[in-house]
Protein backbone atom coordinates (compact mmCIF):
# COMPACT_ATOMS: atom_id res chain seq x y z
CA UNK A 1 0.00 0.00 0.00
CA UNK A 2 1.26 3.47 -0.70
CA UNK A 3 2.06 5.50 2.35
CA UNK A 4 2.19 8.81 0.57
CA UNK A 5 0.20 9.56 -2.52
CA UNK A 6 0.73 12.81 -4.37
CA UNK A 7 -1.82 13.14 -7.13
CA UNK A 8 -1.71 15.83 -9.82
CA UNK A 9 -0.33 18.32 -7.30
CA UNK A 10 -0.25 21.98 -8.33
CA UNK A 11 1.48 24.63 -6.19
CA UNK A 12 1.64 28.31 -7.11
CA UNK A 13 3.91 30.93 -5.59
CA UNK A 14 2.09 34.23 -5.57
CA UNK A 15 3.76 37.60 -5.30
CA UNK A 16 1.56 40.70 -5.40
CA UNK A 17 1.90 42.53 -8.69
CA UNK A 18 3.47 39.63 -10.53
CA UNK A 19 2.07 36.64 -12.38
CA UNK A 20 1.79 33.53 -10.21
CA UNK A 21 4.72 31.16 -10.61
CA UNK A 22 3.57 27.58 -10.98
CA UNK A 23 6.38 25.79 -9.14
CA UNK A 24 4.68 22.40 -9.21
CA UNK A 25 2.46 21.90 -12.25
CA UNK A 26 0.59 18.64 -11.84
CA UNK A 27 3.06 16.19 -10.33
CA UNK A 28 2.12 12.69 -9.20
CA UNK A 29 4.34 10.57 -6.97
CA UNK A 30 3.95 7.75 -4.48
CA UNK A 31 6.12 6.51 -1.62
CA UNK A 32 5.50 3.08 -0.05
CA UNK A 33 6.39 2.11 3.52
CA UNK A 34 10.03 1.07 3.75
CA UNK A 35 10.76 2.52 0.33
CA UNK A 36 13.36 5.17 -0.50
CA UNK A 37 12.39 7.49 -3.35
CA UNK A 38 14.94 9.94 -4.71
CA UNK A 39 13.58 13.11 -6.31
CA UNK A 40 16.12 14.79 -8.57
CA UNK A 41 16.17 17.79 -10.87
CA UNK A 42 17.93 21.09 -11.49
CA UNK A 43 17.48 24.03 -9.13
CA UNK A 44 14.19 25.77 -9.70
CA UNK A 45 12.42 22.64 -10.95
CA UNK A 46 10.03 22.65 -8.00
CA UNK A 47 11.36 19.68 -6.03
CA UNK A 48 11.64 21.55 -2.73
CA UNK A 49 8.20 23.11 -3.20
CA UNK A 50 6.79 19.63 -3.72
CA UNK A 51 8.41 18.50 -0.46
CA UNK A 52 7.02 21.50 1.40
CA UNK A 53 3.53 20.81 0.04
CA UNK A 54 3.77 17.19 1.17
CA UNK A 55 4.19 18.28 4.78
CA UNK A 56 1.75 21.16 4.53
CA UNK A 57 4.24 24.01 4.49
CA UNK A 58 3.12 25.20 1.04
CA UNK A 59 -0.58 25.38 0.17
CA UNK A 60 -1.67 23.30 -2.82
CA UNK A 61 -3.58 25.12 -5.56
CA UNK A 62 -4.81 21.88 -7.06
CA UNK A 63 -4.48 18.13 -6.74
CA UNK A 64 -4.23 16.16 -3.53
CA UNK A 65 -1.65 14.89 -1.08
CA UNK A 66 -2.76 11.87 0.94
CA UNK A 67 -0.74 10.44 3.77
CA UNK A 68 -1.85 7.03 5.08
CA UNK A 69 -5.39 7.77 3.90
CA UNK A 70 -5.57 11.25 5.50
CA UNK A 71 -5.53 14.29 3.22
CA UNK A 72 -2.70 16.70 4.05
CA UNK A 73 -3.90 20.28 4.29
CA UNK A 74 -2.04 23.44 4.93
CA UNK A 75 -0.18 23.59 8.20
CA UNK A 76 -1.70 26.40 10.24
CA UNK A 77 -0.92 28.00 13.56
CA UNK A 78 -2.71 25.34 15.51
CA UNK A 79 -1.46 21.92 16.47
CA UNK A 80 -1.05 19.63 13.53
CA UNK A 81 -3.51 16.81 13.01
CA UNK A 82 -2.30 13.85 15.08
CA UNK A 83 -2.37 11.56 12.05
CA UNK A 84 0.06 13.82 10.25
CA UNK A 85 2.83 13.90 12.85
CA UNK A 86 3.99 10.76 11.08
CA UNK A 87 5.56 13.05 8.47
CA UNK A 88 8.88 14.48 9.60
CA UNK A 89 11.28 16.58 7.63
CA UNK A 90 15.03 17.13 7.62
CA UNK A 91 15.86 20.49 6.10
CA UNK A 92 18.75 21.61 3.95
CA UNK A 93 20.57 23.86 6.37
CA UNK A 94 21.20 22.40 9.83
CA UNK A 95 22.57 25.79 10.89
CA UNK A 96 19.08 27.23 10.46
CA UNK A 97 16.82 24.29 11.27
CA UNK A 98 18.04 23.68 14.83
CA UNK A 99 17.15 26.17 17.54
CA UNK A 100 20.48 27.76 18.55
CA UNK A 101 19.26 28.59 22.06
CA UNK A 102 18.05 25.19 23.15
CA UNK A 103 20.13 22.18 24.14
CA UNK A 104 20.02 19.48 21.49
CA UNK A 105 18.69 16.94 23.98
CA UNK A 106 15.66 19.14 24.63
CA UNK A 107 14.98 19.50 20.92
CA UNK A 108 15.11 15.75 20.45
CA UNK A 109 12.88 15.26 23.52
CA UNK A 110 10.15 17.29 21.74
CA UNK A 111 9.98 14.60 19.09
CA UNK A 112 9.86 11.82 21.68
CA UNK A 113 7.00 13.59 23.46
CA UNK A 114 5.03 13.77 20.22
CA UNK A 115 5.40 10.03 19.78
CA UNK A 116 4.46 9.48 23.46
CA UNK A 117 7.71 7.61 23.91
CA UNK A 118 8.84 7.69 27.54
CA UNK A 119 11.23 4.76 27.35
CA UNK A 120 13.68 6.30 24.89
CA UNK A 121 16.01 9.09 25.98
CA UNK A 122 17.48 11.78 23.71
CA UNK A 123 20.83 10.10 24.34
CA UNK A 124 19.56 6.87 22.78
CA UNK A 125 18.50 8.79 19.67
CA UNK A 126 21.93 10.45 19.47
CA UNK A 127 23.60 7.05 19.61
CA UNK A 128 21.45 5.84 16.73
CA UNK A 129 22.82 8.63 14.54
CA UNK A 130 26.38 7.90 15.61
CA UNK A 131 26.92 10.59 18.25
CA UNK A 132 27.74 9.92 21.90
CA UNK A 133 24.78 10.14 24.30
CA UNK A 134 26.81 12.44 26.53
CA UNK A 135 26.53 15.40 24.12
CA UNK A 136 22.77 15.84 24.71
CA UNK A 137 23.42 18.78 27.03
CA UNK A 138 25.27 20.79 24.39
CA UNK A 139 24.08 23.51 22.04
CA UNK A 140 23.98 23.31 18.21
CA UNK A 141 26.92 25.70 17.73
CA UNK A 142 29.24 23.21 19.36
CA UNK A 143 28.88 20.83 16.41
CA UNK A 144 30.10 20.69 12.82
CA UNK A 145 27.69 20.79 9.88
CA UNK A 146 27.66 17.02 9.45
CA UNK A 147 27.07 16.47 13.17
CA UNK A 148 24.25 19.03 13.20
CA UNK A 149 22.56 17.27 10.34
CA UNK A 150 22.82 14.03 12.35
CA UNK A 151 21.13 15.83 15.26
CA UNK A 152 18.36 17.06 12.93
CA UNK A 153 17.89 13.48 11.76
CA UNK A 154 17.74 12.24 15.36
CA UNK A 155 15.11 14.89 16.13
CA UNK A 156 13.02 13.90 13.12
CA UNK A 157 13.27 10.19 13.93
CA UNK A 158 12.38 10.76 17.60
CA UNK A 159 8.79 11.45 16.55
CA UNK A 160 8.60 7.91 15.10
CA UNK A 161 7.74 9.08 11.60
CA UNK A 162 6.33 6.71 9.05
CA UNK A 163 7.49 9.11 6.35
CA UNK A 164 10.77 10.97 6.49
CA UNK A 165 11.41 13.77 4.02
CA UNK A 166 14.90 15.05 3.34
CA UNK A 167 14.93 18.32 1.43
CA UNK A 168 18.49 18.57 0.09
CA UNK A 169 19.70 17.33 3.50
CA UNK A 170 23.28 16.89 2.35
CA UNK A 171 23.96 19.81 0.05
CA UNK A 172 25.20 22.06 2.86
CA UNK A 173 27.65 19.41 4.05
CA UNK A 174 31.25 18.64 3.28
CA UNK A 175 31.80 16.21 0.44
CA UNK A 176 33.27 13.69 2.84
CA UNK A 177 30.16 13.82 5.06
CA UNK A 178 27.58 13.72 2.25
CA UNK A 179 27.60 10.04 1.43
CA UNK A 180 27.71 9.00 5.10
CA UNK A 181 24.79 11.20 6.16
CA UNK A 182 22.71 10.10 3.15
CA UNK A 183 23.44 6.45 3.87
CA UNK A 184 22.57 6.97 7.53
CA UNK A 185 19.18 8.43 6.58
CA UNK A 186 18.45 5.46 4.39
CA UNK A 187 19.50 2.90 6.98
CA UNK A 188 17.51 4.49 9.81
CA UNK A 189 14.38 4.98 7.69
CA UNK A 190 14.44 1.45 6.31
CA UNK A 191 15.17 -0.07 9.74
CA UNK A 192 12.16 1.62 11.28
CA UNK A 193 9.94 0.66 8.34
CA UNK A 194 9.37 4.28 7.33
CA UNK A 195 9.31 5.61 3.80
CA UNK A 196 11.93 8.16 2.77
CA UNK A 197 11.49 10.88 0.18
CA UNK A 198 15.00 12.10 -0.48
CA UNK A 199 15.35 15.27 -2.50
CA UNK A 200 18.72 16.13 -3.96
CA UNK A 201 20.37 17.56 -7.00
CA UNK A 202 23.28 15.19 -6.44
CA UNK A 203 22.55 12.26 -8.71
CA UNK A 204 25.39 10.06 -7.52
CA UNK A 205 24.17 10.17 -3.92
CA UNK A 206 20.59 9.47 -4.96
CA UNK A 207 21.82 6.49 -6.91
CA UNK A 208 23.52 5.22 -3.80
CA UNK A 209 20.51 5.28 -1.50
CA UNK A 210 17.27 5.31 -3.51
CA UNK A 211 15.15 2.32 -4.53
CA UNK A 212 13.27 4.43 -7.01
CA UNK A 213 14.14 7.70 -8.76
CA UNK A 214 11.75 10.42 -9.87
CA UNK A 215 13.14 13.06 -12.22
CA UNK A 216 11.51 16.47 -12.14
CA UNK A 217 11.66 19.19 -14.77
CA UNK A 218 9.92 22.56 -14.51
CA UNK A 219 7.18 21.43 -12.14
CA UNK A 220 6.51 18.03 -13.68
CA UNK A 221 7.78 14.54 -13.06
CA UNK A 222 9.18 13.43 -16.39
CA UNK A 223 10.45 9.96 -15.51
CA UNK A 224 10.18 7.50 -12.65
CA UNK A 225 11.54 4.02 -12.28
CA UNK A 226 13.75 1.68 -10.25
CA UNK A 227 17.11 3.36 -9.58
CA UNK A 228 19.33 0.98 -11.52
CA UNK A 229 16.99 0.95 -14.50
CA UNK A 230 16.83 4.73 -14.72
CA UNK A 231 20.57 5.00 -14.20
CA UNK A 232 21.64 2.43 -16.76
CA UNK A 233 18.81 2.89 -19.27
CA UNK A 234 17.44 6.43 -18.96
CA UNK A 235 14.56 6.89 -21.39
CA UNK A 236 13.48 10.52 -21.13
CA UNK A 237 15.92 12.79 -23.03
CA UNK A 238 16.11 15.06 -19.98
CA UNK A 239 17.16 12.18 -17.72
CA UNK A 240 19.76 11.20 -20.32
CA UNK A 241 21.13 14.76 -20.41
CA UNK A 242 21.22 14.97 -16.62
CA UNK A 243 23.17 11.73 -16.30
CA UNK A 244 25.60 12.61 -19.08
CA UNK A 245 26.47 15.84 -17.26
CA UNK A 246 27.77 14.01 -14.17
CA UNK A 247 31.58 13.84 -14.36
CA UNK A 248 33.01 10.45 -13.38
CA UNK A 249 36.13 10.23 -11.24
CA UNK A 250 37.68 7.71 -13.59
CA UNK A 251 40.81 9.69 -14.41
CA UNK A 252 40.08 9.59 -18.14
CA UNK A 253 39.76 13.35 -18.60
CA UNK A 254 36.38 13.18 -20.32
CA UNK A 255 34.52 16.49 -20.24
CA UNK A 256 30.89 16.08 -19.20
CA UNK A 257 28.27 16.92 -21.81
CA UNK A 258 26.54 20.23 -21.68
CA UNK A 259 22.77 20.65 -21.87
CA UNK A 260 22.33 23.84 -23.87
CA UNK A 261 19.88 26.54 -22.81
CA UNK A 262 18.52 27.59 -19.44
CA UNK A 263 15.60 26.27 -17.45
CA UNK A 264 12.65 28.33 -18.79
CA UNK A 265 10.72 30.75 -16.62
CA UNK A 266 8.08 28.72 -14.72
CA UNK A 267 5.62 31.62 -14.89
CA UNK A 268 5.72 31.35 -18.67
CA UNK A 269 6.40 27.68 -19.50
CA UNK A 270 6.90 26.54 -23.11
CA UNK A 271 3.95 25.09 -25.01
CA UNK A 272 3.53 21.34 -25.33
CA UNK A 273 6.27 19.33 -23.65
CA UNK A 274 8.09 21.64 -21.27
CA UNK A 275 11.46 20.25 -22.23
CA UNK A 276 11.08 20.60 -26.01
CA UNK A 277 13.09 23.85 -26.48
CA UNK A 278 16.18 22.16 -25.01
CA UNK A 279 15.49 18.63 -26.19
CA UNK A 280 17.90 17.17 -28.76
CA UNK A 281 15.20 14.73 -29.92
CA UNK A 282 12.28 17.16 -30.16
CA UNK A 283 9.67 16.41 -32.84
CA UNK A 284 6.81 18.53 -34.23
CA UNK A 285 4.26 17.13 -31.84
CA UNK A 286 6.38 18.08 -28.80
CA UNK A 287 5.81 21.81 -29.28
CA UNK A 288 2.05 21.37 -29.76
CA UNK A 289 0.85 18.86 -27.23
CA UNK A 290 1.89 17.87 -23.78
CA UNK A 291 2.84 14.21 -23.39
CA UNK A 292 0.71 12.14 -21.00
CA UNK A 293 2.05 11.62 -17.49
CA UNK A 294 3.42 8.14 -16.88
CA UNK A 295 6.64 6.36 -16.04
CA UNK A 296 8.14 8.31 -18.95
CA UNK A 297 6.34 11.48 -19.93
CA UNK A 298 7.67 11.86 -23.47
CA UNK A 299 6.28 11.54 -27.00
CA UNK A 300 9.06 9.07 -27.83
CA UNK A 301 7.42 6.63 -25.44
CA UNK A 302 3.66 6.83 -25.97
CA UNK A 303 1.66 4.90 -23.36
CA UNK A 304 0.80 1.46 -24.65
Amino acid at each position, binding site marked *: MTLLDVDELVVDHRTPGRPAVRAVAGASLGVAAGEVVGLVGE*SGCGKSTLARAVCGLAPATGGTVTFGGTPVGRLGLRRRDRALTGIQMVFQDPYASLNPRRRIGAQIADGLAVAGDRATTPGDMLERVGLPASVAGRYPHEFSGGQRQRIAIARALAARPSLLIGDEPISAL*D*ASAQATVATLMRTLAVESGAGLLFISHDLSVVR*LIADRIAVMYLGKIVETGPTEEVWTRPRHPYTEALLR*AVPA*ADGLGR*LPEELPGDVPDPSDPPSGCRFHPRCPKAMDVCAREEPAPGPVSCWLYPPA
Partner: protein
Amino acid sequence: MSTLSIEGLKVSIGGHDILRGVDLSLAQGRVHGLAGESGSGKTMTGLATLGLLPHGARVSGRIALGDRELLGLPPRELNRVRGREIAMVFQDPATSLHPMLTVGRQITEHMRHHLRLGRTEAHSRAVDLLTQVRIPSPADAARRYPHQFSGGMRQRIAIAVALACGPRVLIADEPTTALDVTVQAGVLRLLRRLCDELGLAVLLVTHDLGVMSAVADEVSVMRDGLVVETGPRARVLREPGHPYTRALLDALPREDTRPQEGP
Protein backbone atom coordinates in the same frame (compact mmCIF):
# COMPACT_ATOMS: atom_id res chain seq x y z
CA MET B 1 59.12 25.63 -17.23
CA SER B 2 56.61 26.36 -14.55
CA THR B 3 54.66 29.60 -14.64
CA LEU B 4 53.96 29.61 -10.95
CA SER B 5 55.89 27.61 -8.40
CA ILE B 6 55.19 27.28 -4.73
CA GLU B 7 57.88 25.78 -2.53
CA GLY B 8 57.72 24.94 1.16
CA LEU B 9 54.82 27.33 1.73
CA LYS B 10 53.95 27.60 5.40
CA VAL B 11 51.11 29.66 6.83
CA SER B 12 50.11 29.97 10.43
CA ILE B 13 47.27 32.01 11.83
CA GLY B 14 46.99 32.71 15.53
CA GLY B 15 49.52 30.01 16.36
CA HIS B 16 47.73 27.35 14.30
CA ASP B 17 49.66 25.85 11.41
CA ILE B 18 47.35 25.99 8.41
CA LEU B 19 49.86 25.10 5.72
CA ARG B 20 52.89 23.06 6.70
CA GLY B 21 55.17 23.18 3.69
CA VAL B 22 53.18 23.04 0.44
CA ASP B 23 54.92 22.44 -2.90
CA LEU B 24 53.00 23.00 -6.12
CA SER B 25 53.87 24.00 -9.63
CA LEU B 26 51.62 25.30 -12.39
CA ALA B 27 52.54 25.22 -16.06
CA GLN B 28 51.23 27.17 -19.02
CA GLY B 29 48.20 25.63 -20.69
CA ARG B 30 47.74 23.08 -17.91
CA VAL B 31 45.05 22.68 -15.27
CA HIS B 32 46.40 21.64 -11.90
CA GLY B 33 43.69 20.23 -9.64
CA LEU B 34 43.96 20.60 -5.89
CA ALA B 35 41.77 18.17 -3.94
CA GLY B 36 41.14 17.41 -0.30
CA GLU B 37 38.38 17.83 2.25
CA SER B 38 37.48 21.13 3.84
CA GLY B 39 40.04 22.36 6.29
CA SER B 40 42.89 20.67 4.43
CA GLY B 41 44.31 24.00 3.26
CA LYS B 42 43.28 24.05 -0.42
CA THR B 43 41.66 27.47 -0.31
CA MET B 44 44.45 28.92 1.86
CA THR B 45 47.00 27.86 -0.74
CA GLY B 46 45.05 29.80 -3.38
CA LEU B 47 44.63 32.85 -1.17
CA ALA B 48 48.30 32.87 -0.14
CA THR B 49 49.29 32.98 -3.81
CA LEU B 50 47.35 36.19 -4.21
CA GLY B 51 48.53 37.63 -0.90
CA LEU B 52 44.95 37.60 0.37
CA LEU B 53 45.58 35.92 3.70
CA PRO B 54 43.79 37.21 6.79
CA HIS B 55 45.44 39.85 8.91
CA GLY B 56 48.08 38.49 11.26
CA ALA B 57 48.89 35.41 9.19
CA ARG B 58 52.56 34.39 9.24
CA VAL B 59 53.86 33.18 5.90
CA SER B 60 57.14 31.61 4.87
CA GLY B 61 58.45 29.68 1.86
CA ARG B 62 58.55 30.69 -1.79
CA ILE B 63 55.89 31.67 -4.30
CA ALA B 64 57.50 32.50 -7.62
CA LEU B 65 55.70 33.83 -10.68
CA GLY B 66 58.19 33.10 -13.44
CA ASP B 67 61.43 34.32 -11.86
CA ARG B 68 59.76 36.87 -9.64
CA GLU B 69 59.31 36.19 -5.92
CA LEU B 70 55.85 37.21 -4.71
CA LEU B 71 56.19 36.62 -0.98
CA GLY B 72 57.32 39.79 0.73
CA LEU B 73 56.45 42.10 -2.15
CA PRO B 74 55.31 45.50 -0.94
CA PRO B 75 51.51 45.99 -1.25
CA ARG B 76 51.81 48.42 -4.17
CA GLU B 77 53.75 45.95 -6.26
CA LEU B 78 51.54 43.06 -5.24
CA ASN B 79 48.54 45.07 -6.43
CA ARG B 80 50.12 45.18 -9.86
CA VAL B 81 50.34 41.39 -9.91
CA ARG B 82 46.86 40.70 -8.55
CA GLY B 83 44.17 40.86 -11.17
CA ARG B 84 46.71 41.56 -13.87
CA GLU B 85 48.96 38.52 -13.82
CA ILE B 86 47.17 36.26 -11.36
CA ALA B 87 43.37 36.33 -11.23
CA MET B 88 40.85 34.45 -9.17
CA VAL B 89 37.38 33.00 -9.60
CA PHE B 90 35.46 32.27 -6.40
CA GLN B 91 32.86 29.67 -5.52
CA ASP B 92 29.77 31.82 -5.36
CA PRO B 93 29.31 34.25 -8.26
CA ALA B 94 26.34 35.78 -6.45
CA THR B 95 28.67 37.24 -3.84
CA SER B 96 31.86 37.71 -5.83
CA LEU B 97 30.28 40.08 -8.36
CA HIS B 98 29.27 43.56 -7.28
CA PRO B 99 25.46 43.66 -7.22
CA MET B 100 25.17 47.37 -8.03
CA LEU B 101 27.58 47.69 -10.93
CA THR B 102 26.77 46.66 -14.47
CA VAL B 103 28.56 43.63 -15.82
CA GLY B 104 30.42 45.81 -18.33
CA ARG B 105 31.67 48.15 -15.61
CA GLN B 106 33.03 45.27 -13.53
CA ILE B 107 35.09 44.07 -16.46
CA THR B 108 36.28 47.47 -17.67
CA GLU B 109 37.23 48.71 -14.22
CA HIS B 110 40.22 46.35 -14.06
CA MET B 111 41.34 47.15 -17.57
CA ARG B 112 41.15 50.88 -17.07
CA HIS B 113 43.04 50.62 -13.79
CA HIS B 114 45.74 48.10 -14.68
CA LEU B 115 46.12 48.61 -18.41
CA ARG B 116 45.17 52.32 -18.51
CA LEU B 117 42.75 51.72 -21.36
CA GLY B 118 40.30 54.39 -22.51
CA ARG B 119 36.56 54.03 -22.03
CA THR B 120 35.70 52.98 -25.58
CA GLU B 121 38.53 50.54 -25.96
CA ALA B 122 37.83 48.95 -22.58
CA HIS B 123 34.17 48.60 -23.47
CA SER B 124 34.83 46.87 -26.76
CA ARG B 125 37.23 44.46 -25.04
CA ALA B 126 34.61 43.73 -22.39
CA VAL B 127 32.15 42.77 -25.10
CA ASP B 128 34.82 40.54 -26.68
CA LEU B 129 35.40 38.84 -23.34
CA LEU B 130 31.69 38.24 -22.82
CA THR B 131 31.57 36.68 -26.28
CA GLN B 132 34.54 34.51 -25.39
CA VAL B 133 32.82 33.13 -22.28
CA ARG B 134 29.67 32.55 -24.39
CA ILE B 135 27.25 35.02 -22.89
CA PRO B 136 24.34 35.45 -25.32
CA SER B 137 23.96 38.98 -26.83
CA PRO B 138 27.13 40.28 -25.14
CA ALA B 139 26.72 43.97 -25.97
CA ASP B 140 23.35 44.00 -24.28
CA ALA B 141 24.60 41.85 -21.38
CA ALA B 142 27.33 44.40 -20.58
CA ARG B 143 24.63 46.92 -19.67
CA ARG B 144 22.81 44.59 -17.30
CA TYR B 145 23.33 43.77 -13.60
CA PRO B 146 24.44 40.44 -12.08
CA HIS B 147 21.00 39.62 -10.61
CA GLN B 148 19.56 39.53 -14.11
CA PHE B 149 21.59 36.42 -14.93
CA SER B 150 21.34 32.77 -13.86
CA GLY B 151 24.00 31.18 -11.63
CA GLY B 152 25.85 29.59 -14.54
CA MET B 153 25.87 32.83 -16.53
CA ARG B 154 27.10 34.74 -13.47
CA GLN B 155 30.01 32.35 -13.08
CA ARG B 156 30.85 32.90 -16.77
CA ILE B 157 30.78 36.64 -16.11
CA ALA B 158 33.05 36.20 -13.09
CA ILE B 159 35.46 34.33 -15.36
CA ALA B 160 35.31 37.19 -17.89
CA VAL B 161 36.13 39.64 -15.07
CA ALA B 162 39.11 37.47 -14.06
CA LEU B 163 40.37 37.32 -17.64
CA ALA B 164 40.00 41.08 -18.24
CA CYS B 165 43.68 41.95 -17.97
CA GLY B 166 44.97 38.83 -19.69
CA PRO B 167 46.42 37.06 -16.63
CA ARG B 168 48.92 34.21 -16.94
CA VAL B 169 47.59 32.36 -13.91
CA LEU B 170 43.96 31.71 -12.97
CA ILE B 171 43.04 30.40 -9.54
CA ALA B 172 39.56 28.90 -9.51
CA ASP B 173 38.30 28.00 -6.03
CA GLU B 174 35.39 25.54 -6.26
CA PRO B 175 34.09 27.38 -9.35
CA THR B 176 31.26 24.93 -10.05
CA THR B 177 30.26 23.80 -6.55
CA ALA B 178 27.27 26.15 -6.40
CA LEU B 179 26.00 25.07 -9.83
CA ASP B 180 23.74 22.29 -11.11
CA VAL B 181 25.48 19.44 -12.95
CA THR B 182 24.11 20.50 -16.33
CA VAL B 183 25.41 24.04 -15.83
CA GLN B 184 28.63 22.78 -14.27
CA ALA B 185 29.37 20.84 -17.45
CA GLY B 186 29.29 24.07 -19.47
CA VAL B 187 31.55 25.97 -17.09
CA LEU B 188 34.08 23.12 -16.97
CA ARG B 189 34.19 23.00 -20.76
CA LEU B 190 34.74 26.76 -20.79
CA LEU B 191 37.62 26.55 -18.30
CA ARG B 192 39.29 23.81 -20.29
CA ARG B 193 38.92 25.71 -23.56
CA LEU B 194 40.28 28.98 -22.10
CA CYS B 195 43.22 27.15 -20.61
CA ASP B 196 44.04 25.58 -23.99
CA GLU B 197 43.39 28.64 -26.14
CA LEU B 198 44.97 31.31 -23.94
CA GLY B 199 47.72 29.15 -22.51
CA LEU B 200 46.57 29.93 -18.98
CA ALA B 201 48.03 28.14 -15.99
CA VAL B 202 44.99 27.14 -13.93
CA LEU B 203 44.88 26.08 -10.30
CA LEU B 204 41.52 24.36 -9.83
CA VAL B 205 40.58 23.91 -6.18
CA THR B 206 37.77 21.39 -5.81
CA HIS B 207 36.61 18.66 -3.48
CA ASP B 208 34.83 16.94 -6.36
CA LEU B 209 37.02 14.21 -7.81
CA GLY B 210 34.65 13.89 -10.76
CA VAL B 211 35.29 17.52 -11.69
CA MET B 212 38.99 16.88 -11.16
CA SER B 213 38.92 13.90 -13.47
CA ALA B 214 37.13 15.88 -16.17
CA VAL B 215 39.45 18.88 -16.51
CA ALA B 216 42.69 18.55 -14.54
CA ASP B 217 45.98 17.52 -16.13
CA GLU B 218 47.82 17.16 -12.85
CA VAL B 219 46.26 16.38 -9.49
CA SER B 220 47.54 17.17 -6.00
CA VAL B 221 45.81 15.90 -2.90
CA MET B 222 46.05 17.88 0.33
CA ARG B 223 45.53 16.85 3.89
CA ASP B 224 46.18 18.78 7.10
CA GLY B 225 48.17 21.49 5.34
CA LEU B 226 50.39 19.17 3.34
CA VAL B 227 50.31 17.85 -0.21
CA VAL B 228 50.25 14.10 0.32
CA GLU B 229 50.24 13.05 -3.32
CA THR B 230 50.80 14.73 -6.66
CA GLY B 231 50.96 13.39 -10.19
CA PRO B 232 49.27 13.06 -13.58
CA ARG B 233 45.47 12.82 -13.39
CA ALA B 234 45.14 9.29 -14.68
CA ARG B 235 47.81 7.93 -12.34
CA VAL B 236 46.51 9.63 -9.16
CA LEU B 237 42.86 8.78 -9.78
CA ARG B 238 43.35 5.27 -11.14
CA GLU B 239 46.31 4.06 -9.11
CA PRO B 240 46.43 6.26 -6.02
CA GLY B 241 49.72 5.85 -4.19
CA HIS B 242 48.73 7.45 -0.90
CA PRO B 243 46.22 5.77 1.42
CA TYR B 244 44.42 9.11 1.90
CA THR B 245 43.80 9.51 -1.85
CA ARG B 246 42.43 5.99 -1.89
CA ALA B 247 40.18 6.83 1.07
CA LEU B 248 38.85 9.90 -0.77
CA LEU B 249 38.10 7.83 -3.85
CA ASP B 250 36.45 5.16 -1.70
CA ALA B 251 34.22 7.77 -0.09
CA LEU B 252 32.58 8.40 -3.47
CA PRO B 253 29.14 6.91 -3.89
CA ARG B 254 29.49 3.75 -5.90
CA GLU B 255 27.28 0.77 -6.41
CA ASP B 256 29.40 -1.62 -4.35
CA THR B 257 29.35 0.66 -1.33
CA ARG B 258 25.57 0.48 -1.07
CA PRO B 259 24.57 -0.13 2.55
CA GLN B 260 23.61 -3.64 3.53
CA GLU B 261 20.11 -3.99 4.83
CA GLY B 262 19.31 -5.97 7.94
CA PRO B 263 16.98 -8.98 7.82
